[in-house]
C-alpha cells in the first residue's frame, strides 16, 4: 500500500469539505438571524427590553453548550445534514446575537441624536445608523460564532455524523489509526484558523473605517 493510499488524502479532503459546508451554512444562517434579531431587540421599547421574562427567554438558551443540544436535535430532526447544521446554528447564534444587541445598545447618544435631528425613518435609522454602527461589535460576535460553530460541527459529527472530520476522528479511533486521527486534528486546527482569518478579511472589506481594522 502506498503512503498516499494509506493516508487517503482524498477522503480527508472530502470530510473537510463536508464539515466546512455545514459550518458555512450554519454560521451564515446564524449571522443572518442573529444580526437581525439583535438589532431589532435594541429597537424595542425600554420597558419591554427590561422585562425579566423576555430577558430570560432570550438569554437562557445560550448557556447550555451546543453539544448538550445534540440529543434534542437528533430527537427532533433525526441524524442527518439538517441536524448537523442546526447544531452549528445553535452554537454560532448566541455570540452573534449577543454581539449585535450589545453593539446596537452601545451606539453613542450623539449618533442617535443626530439621526433624530435628521428625521430618519425607523428602517433607515436601524440600517444606516444602528446596524452600521454595530458592525465592529458584530464582527467580534462573528469571530466567536465561527469558532464555536466549527467546534460544534466537529462535536456533532463525532456523535451522530456519517461524514465530516468529527466522524473521521471517531472512525479512525475505532480502526486504531491514530496517525490519521492526528491528521484530522491538524485539519480541524487549520480550517478553524482559516475560517477565523476569513472573518478578519471580511472585516477589512466591510469596516475599513474602524480603528481596529485600520491599525492592522
Amino acid at each position, binding site marked *: 500500500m502506498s503512503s498516499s493510499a494509506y493516508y487517503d488524502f482524498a477522503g480527508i479532503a472530502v470530510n473537510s469539505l463536508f464539515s466546512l459546508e455545514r459550518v458555512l451554512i450554519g454560521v451564515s444562517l446564524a449571522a443572518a438571524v442573529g444580526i437581525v434579531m439583535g438589532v431589532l431587540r435594541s429597537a424595542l421599547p425600554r420597558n419591554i427590553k427590561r422585562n425579566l421574562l423576555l430577558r430570560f427567554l432570550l438569554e437562557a438558551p445560550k448557556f447550555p453548550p451546543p453539544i448538550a443540544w445534540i440529543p434534542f436535535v437528533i430527537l427532533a430532526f433525526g441524524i442527518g445534514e439538517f441536524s448537523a447544521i442546526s447544531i452549528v446554528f445553535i452554537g454560532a447564534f448566541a455570540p452573534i446575537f449577543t454581539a449585535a444587541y450589545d453593539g446596537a445598545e452601545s451606539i453613542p447618544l*450623539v*449618533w442617535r*441624536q*443626530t439621526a*433624530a*435631528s*435628521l428625521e430618519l425613518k425607523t428602517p433607515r435609522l436601524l440600517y444606516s445608523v444602528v446596524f*452600521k454602527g454595530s458592525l465592529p461589535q458584530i464582527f467580534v460576535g462573528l469571530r466567536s460564532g465561527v469558532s464555536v460553530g466549527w467546534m460544534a460541527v466537529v462535536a456533532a459529527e463525532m456523535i451522530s455524523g456519517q461524514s465530516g472530520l468529527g466522524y473521521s476522528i471517531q472512525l479512525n479511533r475505532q480502526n486504531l489509526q491514530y496517525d490519521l486521527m492526528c491528521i484530522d486534528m491538524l485539519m480541524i486546527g487549520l480550517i478553524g484558523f482559516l475560517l477565523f482569518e476569513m472573518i478578519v478579511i471580511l472585516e477589512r472589506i466591510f469596516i*475599513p*473605517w474602524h480603528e481596529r481594522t485600520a491599525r492592522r
Partner: protein
Amino acid sequence: MTHIEASHLSFAFPGKPPLFEDLSFKIERGQCLGVSGPSGCGKSTLAQVLAGHLRPSAGVVAVAGQEMLRPNRDVFLVHQDTDLFPWLTAEKQILFGMLEPNSARAKELIELTKLTGFEKYFPHQLSGGMKKRLSIARALAVNPKLLIFDESFNSLDFELRMELFGDLKQIWRETKTTILLISHDPRDLEQMAEKELRLEKRR
C-alpha cells in the same frame, strides 16, 4: 416674526434642582447668539432642549413660529464630541445630511469648509480640525433654521480653535445661518456672537 423664541424655559432633571428657570430670549434670522457660563450651569442642557432632545419642564421653544416638540431638521446641534458617522466618507457624510442628496451642493460645502481633496476620506483619516469642518459642512447640508455649536471646538488647541472660528465666521457671513454658539471661554464668543446670554450656576 422672531426667528427663534424661547419663552419662560425651565429645566430640571428628575429629583434635581432646576438647571435654569424662566429663561426667555429671542434670536433674529441670521443672528449669532453666544451662550456662556461656568461648567455645570446648564449650557449643554439648554442646547439639548432647543434641539428637541430634552423636553423643558416648563416653557416653549418656537422656531419660525412653530413650537419645537421633538427633534427635527429645523434645529441642528453640532456636539462637543465628534458626531460624525465613522463609516461614511466626508462626501457621503454631507450627502447623508441632505433631504434630497445633491452632489453639486455637497461639492460646494466641501469647498466652503476647505475639505477639497478629502472627499473620500473617513473621519479617522482626518485631523481634529478637519473633522470639525466636516461637522460644519454636514450641519449646513441639513439647512437648519438654527445651528447650535455646543462647545464644538473645545477639544482643539487655542490656535486651531481661533482658525476654525475665523472660517466659521466667513461661512456664517456667506450662508446667513442663524447660530447659537455655546462656550465657557469668552474668547470664543468674541469671535462671532452679536449678543450674549450668560447662564449662572445655581446652588
